[in-house]
C-alpha cells in the first residue's frame, strides 16, 4: 500500500512540475537557512569544547578594587596557585603577541603565540598527537627553549612531517626544540589558528611587581569539586592576599565561570535570536507550502471525491496526501542541505572571524538529521490542514460542482490568515534587520577622529634577540620610517604600540599631582601608548595646547618622562581651572621621576563602541634600552594617496630592507580594521538581512500564489461582477484593496509582535519603539508597496477576465 502511495505521489509531482518545484524550492530555502543556523549553533553552543571534561575547566576572571577586569600579576598568580586547594591545575598564559618562527616551508612567519606556565596542558587534559607537552619546570629561564605546535601550524608550516619532533627552530630569534604536536581540534584560546605554544618566561619588568597585571588564568577544578566550591576557595585566597598586600591586592575579587560559558557569552543570545529568526522564515515557508497545497487541493477535490465514492476511507486519503508531503519534504531537505552547505562555505571566513568557535562549523550527521527532520516536520505541518480538509469533503457536492467548490468564506479567511501570518513574521524580521543594518551603518559613519580610508596599517614583530644591546629605534624604526616616507604616494608614516580601533585596554590608574586622592570604586584609568612623532601626522591628530613630543626634547636620559595627553584625558583628570601642560602625574616613587604633561592633542577613537578614552602617549625615543622590548611589536601606520595596492609591494621591500627577519603581514586600511572590529555586528546584520530578504521573497511568492489562486477560484464571481457593470479598473481596485487589507493587517500584527518580542530582539539590538515609529512606518510602507506589486499581476489578470467566457465556463 505504501509503495502504491509512493508511486502515485511521484506521478502526481511529475504531472504538476511547476507546483512541485515551487514547494521543493520553498522548503529548500526555509530548511536551508534553518539548517545553516542550526549548524552554527551546534558548533558554537551545543558541541562540547574539545577538551577532557570541559565541565570542570574554568575561566578565572579577576577584577580591580574599582570593579574593572584586571588580570593577575605574576607574583599574585604564583601565590594563588600555591594557596588554592580545589584545583588540579591553575595555569597562567598570555596570547598578546605573535612570534616570528623561521619555517622551511614559508621562511619567517608571524604565528599566534600562547605563552603559558608549565601546567597549561594539564588544564585541558588533552594528550599530544606527537611527542609531549611541557615538563614541570620548563617555564624556568634556561629550560624554556621548547615549543609545542598546534596541528594546523604543523600541517601548514611543517608539512605534517612526523620527524619534526626534536627539530630546532628559531622562535623570535631564539633556538627552540619542537617537543610536541597537539591533535587536530585542540586550540586554546579557542579562536586562535596556526598557533604555537611556548613556556612563559618573561623578563624582569613583567615578572616583578604585584601591581603589574597582565597574566590571564585558566584552571581545572578537582574531581568532585564544584565550580562554586572552586570559586569559594579562590575567593578565600584573594582575601588572604588582600590582607597580606593591601597596597596592591586589597579589594581585588575573583569570579569563576565555566570556560564553555565564557566562550559562548558573546554569541549565545544572538545565536538563539537568530534561530528564532530562521524559525520565523521556516514558518513563512510552511505557510507558503500549506497555501500551495491548499490551492492544489481545490484542484484535486474531484479526484478525492472519486476516491471517496469508490470506497476510500478518510485515513487512506490522509495517508496518500501525507506520503506526497513527505516526498516533497525529502526533496526539500536535499535542497536545503545543499543550500546550507553553500551558505556556510560562502560565510566560512566571516564566521571564523566573528565567532570564537567559527572554525568548528561544519556539516555533520546531527545537522543532516536535523535538516531532514525539520523538512519532514515542516512538510507535515503544511500538508496536515489541506489533507484533513480534502479528506473530509462531501463527494456528492464536489462531483456535482465539477471540482470547483473552493470559494467559500472559510477558504477566504484561511487564505487571508496565511497572508497576514507571513507578512507579520516578515515585518518582524525586516524591522530587526533594518535596525541591525542601521547600527552597522552608523558605526561605519561614526566620526573616529581620523579618516580610516587613507591609512594603511601593518603589524611589525621584531625578534627580541636581534636587538639585544642595540637601540631598536635608531637601528630599525627610524631607518624604516625613512624608507617608507620615500615611497611614492606615502604622505606620512609612524608607529603606535596598540592600533586604534583594533586594540585598547593597556591602561593605568592616573592621579594628577597635587589633586585630592581619587575617589574609591571609581574607574580612573587612562590608556597608555608608545608612539613615533609621525603617528600624529598619519592620523591627523591636531595639537590643542602646549607642544608635540619631540626626539630632541623628550629623551630617555631625561629624569622625568614627558607625555602628551588627549582632550578626554584633560576632561577626566585635570580640573578646569588648571593648565594641563603644567601638570604632572605622580606615577613614580620619586617626585623628580613623575611624568610631565607637555601637550594636549585631539581625540580619536580607540574603541569604536565607546566615546574617546583618556589617553597618554610616550615617544618611543623616551624608552630606556631595558624597556625597549615593549616596542618589539608595533603597528606601522602610513597615510597615503592613490591606490593602497600600489604601495604594498614597496612597503614589503622597505620592511625587509630594514630587517629581513621581520615577517611581512599584509597591511590593511583602517577602514578594513573598522570592518573587522564590527564583524559580529556585521554578521548579525548580514544574517538578519538575508533572512529578512528571504522571508520577504517567500511572503511575496506566497502572496502572489494565493492571490493568483483566489483569482482563479473567483473567475466566475468576477465575471458576474462584470456582467453587473463592474469596470476592469474596479475589479483591479477590488482585488488590490483586499490585498492591501491583508497587508495592512499583517503589518499591524507584525509591528505588535515586534514590540511584544522586543526583549528577544533586544538580545541583538535594543530599540525604543516610540523613537523608531517613523522608521517602522517607512518599513511597513515598503512592505505594503512590495506586497501590492507582487499582487499586481494576478490582480491585472483578474481585471482582464472576459465576463462572457467566465460565465460560459460556469
Amino acid at each position, binding site marked *: 500500500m505504501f509503495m502504491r502511495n509512493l508511486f502515485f505521489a511521484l506521478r502526481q509531482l511529475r504531472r504538476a512540475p511547476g507546483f512541485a518545484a515551487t514547494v521543493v524550492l520553498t522548503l529548500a530555502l526555509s530548511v536551508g537557512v534553518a539548517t545553516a543556523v542550526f549548524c552554527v549553533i551546534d558548533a558554537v553552543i551545543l558541541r562540547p569544547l574539545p577538551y577532557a571534561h570541559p565541565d570542570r575547566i574554568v575561566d578565572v576572571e579577576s577584577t580591580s578594587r574599582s570593579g574593572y577586569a584586571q588580570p593577575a600579576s605574576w607574583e599574585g598568580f604564583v601565590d594563588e596557585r600555591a594557596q588554592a586547594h580545589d584545583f588540579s591545575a591553575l595555569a597562567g598564559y598570555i596570547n598578546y603577541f605573535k612570534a616570528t618562527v623561521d619555517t622551511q616551508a614559508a621562511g619567517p612567519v608571524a604565528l599566534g603565540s600562547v605563552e603559558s606556565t608549565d601546567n597549561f596542558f594539564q588544564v585541558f587534559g588533552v594528550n599530544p598527537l606527537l611527542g609531549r607537552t611541557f615538563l614541570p619546570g620548563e617555564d624556568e629561564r634556561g629550560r624554556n627553549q621548547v615549543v609545542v605546535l598546534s596541528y594546523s601550524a604543523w600541517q601548514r608550516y611543517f608539512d605534517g612531517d612526523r620527524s619534526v619532533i626534536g627539530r630546532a627552530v628559531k622562535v623570535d630569534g631564539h633556538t627552540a626544540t619542537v617537543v610536541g604536536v597537539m591533535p587536530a581540534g585542540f586550540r586554546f584560546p579557542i579562536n586562535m589558528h596556526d598557533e604555537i605554544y611556548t613556556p612563559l618566561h618573561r623578563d624582569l619588568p613583567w615578572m616583578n611587581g604585584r601591581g603589574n597585571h597582565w597574566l590571564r588564568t585558566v584552571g581545572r577544578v578537582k574531581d568532585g569539586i564544584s565550580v562554586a566550591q572552586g570559586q569559594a576557595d579562590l575567593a578565600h585566597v584573594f582575601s588572604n592576599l588582600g590582607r597580606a598586600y593591601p597596597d596592591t591586592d586589597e579589594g581585588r575579587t575573583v569570579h569563576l565561570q565555566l570556560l564553555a560559558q565564557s566562550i559562548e557569552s558573546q554569541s549565545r543570545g544572538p545565536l538563539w535570536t537568530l534561530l528564532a529568526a530562521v524559525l520565523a522564515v521556516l514558518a513563512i515557508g510552511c505557510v507558503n507550502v500549506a497555501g500551495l497545497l491548499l490551492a492544489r487541493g481545490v484542484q484535486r477535490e474531484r479526484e478525492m471525491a472519486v476516491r471517496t465514492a469508490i470506497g476510500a476511507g478518510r485515513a487512506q486519503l490522509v495517508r496518500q496526501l501525507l506520503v506526497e508531503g513527505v516526498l516533497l519534504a525529502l526533496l526539500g531537505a536535499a535542497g536545503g542541505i545543499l543550500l546550507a552547505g553553500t551558505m556556510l562555505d560562502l560565510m566560512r571566513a566571516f564566521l571564523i572571524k566573528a565567532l570564537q568557535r567559527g572554525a568548528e562549523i561544519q556539516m555533520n550527521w546531527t545537522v543532516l538529521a536535523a535538516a531532514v527532520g525539520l523538512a519532514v516536520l515542516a512538510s507535515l505541518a503544511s500538508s496536515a490542514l489541506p489533507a484533513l480538509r480534502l479528506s473530509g469533503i462531501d463527494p456528492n457536492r464536489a462531483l456535482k460542482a465539477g471540482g470547483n467548490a473552493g*470559494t*467559500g*468564506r472559510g477558504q*477566504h479567511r484561511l487564505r487571508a490568515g496565511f497572508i497576514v501570518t507571513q507578512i507579520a513574521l516578515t515585518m518582524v524580521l525586516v524591522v530587526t534587520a533594518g535596525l541591525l543594518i542601521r547600527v552597522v551603518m552608523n558605526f561605519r559613519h561614526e566620526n573616529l577622529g581620523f579618516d580610516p580610508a587613507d591609512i594603511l596599517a601593518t603589524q611589525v614583530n621584531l625578534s627580541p634577540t636581534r636587538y639585544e644591546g642595540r637601540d631598536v629605534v635608531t637601528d630599525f624604526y627610524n631607518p624604516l620610517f625613512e624608507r617608507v616616507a620615500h615611497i611614492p604616494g606615502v604622505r606620512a608614516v609612524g608607529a603606535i604600540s596598540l592600533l586604534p580601533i583594533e586594540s585598547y585596554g593597556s591602561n593605568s590608574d592616573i592621579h594628577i599631582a597635587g589633586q585630592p586622592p581619587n575617589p574609591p570604586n571609581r574607574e580612573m584609568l587612562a590608556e597608555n601608548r608608545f608612539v613615533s612623532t609621525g603617528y600624529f601626522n598619519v592620523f591627523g591628530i591636531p595639537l590643542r595646547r602646549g607642544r608635540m613630543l619631540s626626539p630632541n626634547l623628550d629623551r630617555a636620559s631625561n629624569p622625568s618622562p614627558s607625555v602628551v595627553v588627549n582632550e578626554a584625558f584633560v576632561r577626566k583628570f585635570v580640573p578646569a581651572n588648571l593648565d594641563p601642560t603644567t601638570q604632572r602625574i605622580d606615577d613614580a616613587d620619586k617626585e623628580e621621576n613623575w611624568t610631565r604633561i607637555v601637550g594636549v592633542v585631539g581625540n580619536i577613537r580607540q574603541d569604536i563602541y565607546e566615546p574617546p578614552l583618556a589617553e597618554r602617549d610616550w615617544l618611543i625615543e623616551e624608552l630606556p634600552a631595558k624597556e625597549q622590548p615593549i616596542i618589539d611589536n608595533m603597528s606601522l601606520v602610513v597615510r597615503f594617496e592613490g591606490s593602497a595596492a600600489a604601495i604594498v609591494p614597496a612597503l614589503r621591500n622597505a620592511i625587509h630592507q630594514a630587517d629581513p627577519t621581520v615577517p611581512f603581514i599584509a597591511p590593511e586600511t583602517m577602514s578594513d580594521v573598522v570592518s573587522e572590529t564590527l564583524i559580529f555586528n556585521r554578521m548579525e546584520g548580514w544574517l538578519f538581512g538575508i533572512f529578512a530578504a528571504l522571508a520577504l521573497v517567500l511572503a511575496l511568492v506566497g502572496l502572489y500564489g494565493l492571490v493568483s489562486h483566489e483569482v482563479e477560484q473567483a473567475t*466566475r*464571481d468576477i*465575471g*458576474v*461582477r*462584470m*456582467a*453587473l*457593470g*463592474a*469596470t*476592469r*479598473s*474596479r475589479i483591479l481596485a477590488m482585488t488590490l484593496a483586499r490585498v492591501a487589507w491583508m497587508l495592512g493587517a499583517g503589518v499591524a500584527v507584525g509591528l505588535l509582535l515586534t514590540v511584544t518580542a522586543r526583549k528577544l530582539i533586544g538580545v541583538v539590538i535594543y530599540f525604543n519603539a516610540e523613537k523608531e515609529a517613523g522608521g517602522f512606518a517607512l518599513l511597513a510602507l515598503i512592505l505594503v508597496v512590495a506586497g501590492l506589486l507582487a499582487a499586481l499581476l494576478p490582480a491585472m489578470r483578474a481585471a482582464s477576465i472576459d*465576463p*462572457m467566457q467566465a*460565465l*460560459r465556463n*460556469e
Partner: protein
Amino acid sequence: MASNGNSTLIEIEDLTKVFYTDEVETHALSGIHLTIDRGEYLAMSGPSGCGKSTLLSILGLLDTPTGGRYQLNGKPVENLSFSERSRIRNQEIGFIFQSFNLIGDLTVEENVELPLTYRAGMPSAERKRRVKEALERVNMAHRMRHYPAQLSGGQQQRVAVARALAGSPSILLADEPTGNLDSKNGEAVMHLLADLHREGSTICMVTHDPRFARHAEREVHLFDGKVVSEQEMKKLEAEAEA
C-alpha cells in the same frame, strides 16, 4: 423601471458573430435582424448551439458582434469600449442566469446591492431602499442576512431576479432561468417574470423549453445562428432528426 410604451428599445440589423480558432471559423450568428420594444416579453428558443446564448451575450453587451448594427435606446452600442459597455450594462440591463451566479461571500442583501455599488454617486440610503424594495418584490426580504449557500435553488434564483431588478434596468435578460430548478420552482420563477412583465418590465428570455417559452408575448426561433419562423424551425428540426 422603463415605461410600458411601444417605442423600440433594441434594434439589431444584419448582426453576425464569428468565432475564430486556429483552423476553424465558426459562424455563431448570421444576419440577425431583431427589434425589441419597451415592455415586451420575448422568448428566444432553439436547440443547443443555435446561438441563442451568444445573441443574449451581445444583447447584454457582454460580447461584441463581428458585424452588423446594434442600437440600444436609439444609440449604437456595438463598438463601445469595455468601460462604456460596463456602465450601460450596469444601468440598462439586468441579468438573470441559469446557475443564479450569486456571490457566495456576500449576503443576500449585499448580492442585490452589488450592481448599485458600481453606480457612482448613489447614496447608501438609496441603495438600501432599492434593495429592500427588490427583495420584497420577490418575497425574499426575510432572508436578507442569509448567504446564498443557506438558500434553496428557487430562493437563490429569486434573489438573482431581485438583483437584476434593483438597478431599474431597461431590460431583463434571462438565460435559461429555470434550467437549474425543479418544475415547481421553475414555474414559480416564470410566474415572477410574468408578474414583472405585467408591471412594465421588458424581458428577453432564452429557453429551450416550449412550456416556458409560452409565457412570453413573442417567441423568436433560432437555428444555426439564424432567426427562423416556427414552421421553418419545425421543418429544420425534423430534417436534423432524420
